[in-house]
């Protein structure tokens, strides 16, 4: 079963996110990640949902989403040429012996160090899911104290909206 990224445009009204998540819960669809935020139009929000399922499940999810009155458009952008980004903040153990090594890794991933503590560093990275997975893996051996990762946001390349 494949991960699909659905880009869902909805009315920017209170309660709309609840309607979407309630639908997923009730129909027992599995949300991998979900982000929601403003768009270029203040009356519209965009929800980006990553959901696992075969073609049939994704088709049902899409149709059920369309039945919600506040859902304007649903696009499965999994196979579209698109730019996808996630953001991660990783607090990693970093005493003097390993700091240089960590900085090197951060450079390779074109990530940034955004805070330096006595024994820890906070690393900020953006990228597609695979890159974020990779940086997490690379820093893991040093000891990750805390990690917070956003869901995915995505936009289709070219003129298509």
């Amino acid at each position, binding site marked *: 079963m494949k991960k699909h990224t659905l880009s869902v445009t909805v009315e920017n009204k209170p309660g709309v996110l609840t309607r979407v998540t309630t639908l997923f819960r009730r129909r027992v669809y599995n949300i991998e990640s979900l982000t929601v935020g403003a768009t270029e139009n203040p009356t519209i929000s965009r929800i980006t949902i990553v959901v696992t399922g075969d073609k049939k499940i994704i088709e049902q999810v899409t*149709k059920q989403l369309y*039945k919600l009155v506040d859902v304007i458009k649903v696009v499965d952008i999994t196979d579209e040429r698109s730019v996808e980004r996630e953001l991660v903040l990783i607090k990693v153990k970093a005493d003097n012996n390993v700091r240089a090594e960590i900085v090197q890794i951060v450079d390779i991933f074109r990530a940034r160090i955004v805070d330096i503590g006595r024994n820890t560093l906070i690393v900020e990275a953006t990228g597609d899911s695979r890159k974020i997975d990779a940086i997490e893996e690379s820093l893991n051996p040093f000891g990750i104290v805390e990690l917070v990762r956003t869901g995915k946001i995505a936009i289709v390349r070219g003129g298509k909206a």
Partner: protein
Amino acid sequence: MKLKGAEILLHCLKEEGVDTVFGYPGGAVLPIYDAIYDSDIRHILARHEQGAAHAADGYARATGKVGVCISTSGPGATNLITGIATANMDSVPMVCFTGQVGSALIGRDAFQEADITGITLPITKHNYLVEKTEDVARVVKEAFHIARSNRPGPVVVDLPKDIMENSIEFKGDREEVNLRGYRVMKGYNSGQVISAVEHIHKAERPVIYAGGGVISSNASAELRELAEKRKIPVTTTLMGIGCFPGTNYLALGMLGMHGTRYANYAIGEADLLIAVGVRFDDRVTGKIDTFAPHARVIHIDIDAAEIGKNVDVDVPIVGQVKEVLQAINQRLDELDTYSEWNKTIDRWKEEFPLRYGTSSKGRIMPQHIIEKIYALTQGEAIITTEVGQNQMWAAQYYKYKYPRTFLTSGGLGTMGYGFPAAIGAKIACPDKTVIDIAGDGSIQMNIQELGTAVQYKLPVIICILNNQFLGMVRQWQGLFYGGRYSFTDISHQPDFVKLAEAYDAIGMRIKDVGDVDGALQEALKVSDRPVVMDFWVEREADVYPMVPPGGSLFNMLGGE
């Protein structure tokens, strides 16, 4: 002109063509009830909010119009829940207005506060919490539009007390509905229609499987044309009963768990299934992998999400059933020959009719009562049912002639639905005979509505098939749980005749099979109050035929 929110609400209801509302007052809806006091909209006072909801539902199913009910906040609103869920599962157009505590108190656990938009989210087509008086007119318009269009369903509108009490300048003009996320479905894919016609022309053993969508789309005439043009046998779901006349030579009756043998056999042998306004429910299909195993499937439905949900479809057509059937009929060649297929089905009908045994204790057989009701009303009555054995016998042994004459809780299976729904239907259709076929268990779930029926002088007939059991559950316990009748013996029960009389209704007790006909005739003559008929029936009669849960349609028990 300055108007209160509640006055605007009533004004909007009139504009939507509402003539009757069902409700129950309370603190949070005082402003609304104050406006109702001066209104010429008829308000029917239920005795429990659940009764109001089912009555609005019965009114809606009997007429096709939007049913309206009103309750107060908190417990009043939560009492509507079963009624809303019932309407949602059966796609019944309803708008339910619930009172809410004042805006300033929302979220503070105020007296009689409940998060009703949260609670009803998964059981409504849509819902609203109105945030300002200026929004009342728009929200009411949208609510009715959503409830009645496309696949109908219930809409809840939650109205905080201050929003109803506040006055604003109101000119009475209302904008058009403008919902960019909700479009009324028009048209269909004509390529698919052509493909459907080709399939129908080629089919040797076609079957029409018709459901509630035919009724909500008012497409009975079109369905009949399709069937008769090609001599295609028609089986209906529980929700579809009445969409095709039960007396027609092509009628197969109901299919599925308690369907006729010949309907289920026809599904098993069909090479083409024309599924119209149906959703391939588990009670219909039995084991899904063996449902219509030799058939190509044409599926016509207004709701795209129903297509491909439970079975794979060869020809999907999303659209208004009526419109799509018209398009198909137009392109269809008439067929004169009575095919081998038709003859095979006639043989099955002859060989495996619905049948039932006799009572060893000389008691009345419940099926006999339904047959008598049919004999006396000839398909002209509106029949409502409770849920369980009474419901299945009412579906099997009465021949329905018209759509909107069989009102039953099919999807949710709500005990206590039938009597309040009968009240709603009687108010909608005062000239029709309205009969609730009940069990002794179900009727006790909304028996308090006798008060309503007496107050409004509604001659609704309640036929209790009294076996002193929760019969359907007992039947399953008998078949699948070794006859261990755990808590289904309800012989400890009230005297229904006295109970009726306490409400100033008429009570009758019928113990002898020879009295059934006379008693029914007497009840049918009553014109000013409800009649409760307590029929003492065979205690352990079972509903047959039966497809055991999860079994294949052609492996039926009973009725051979």
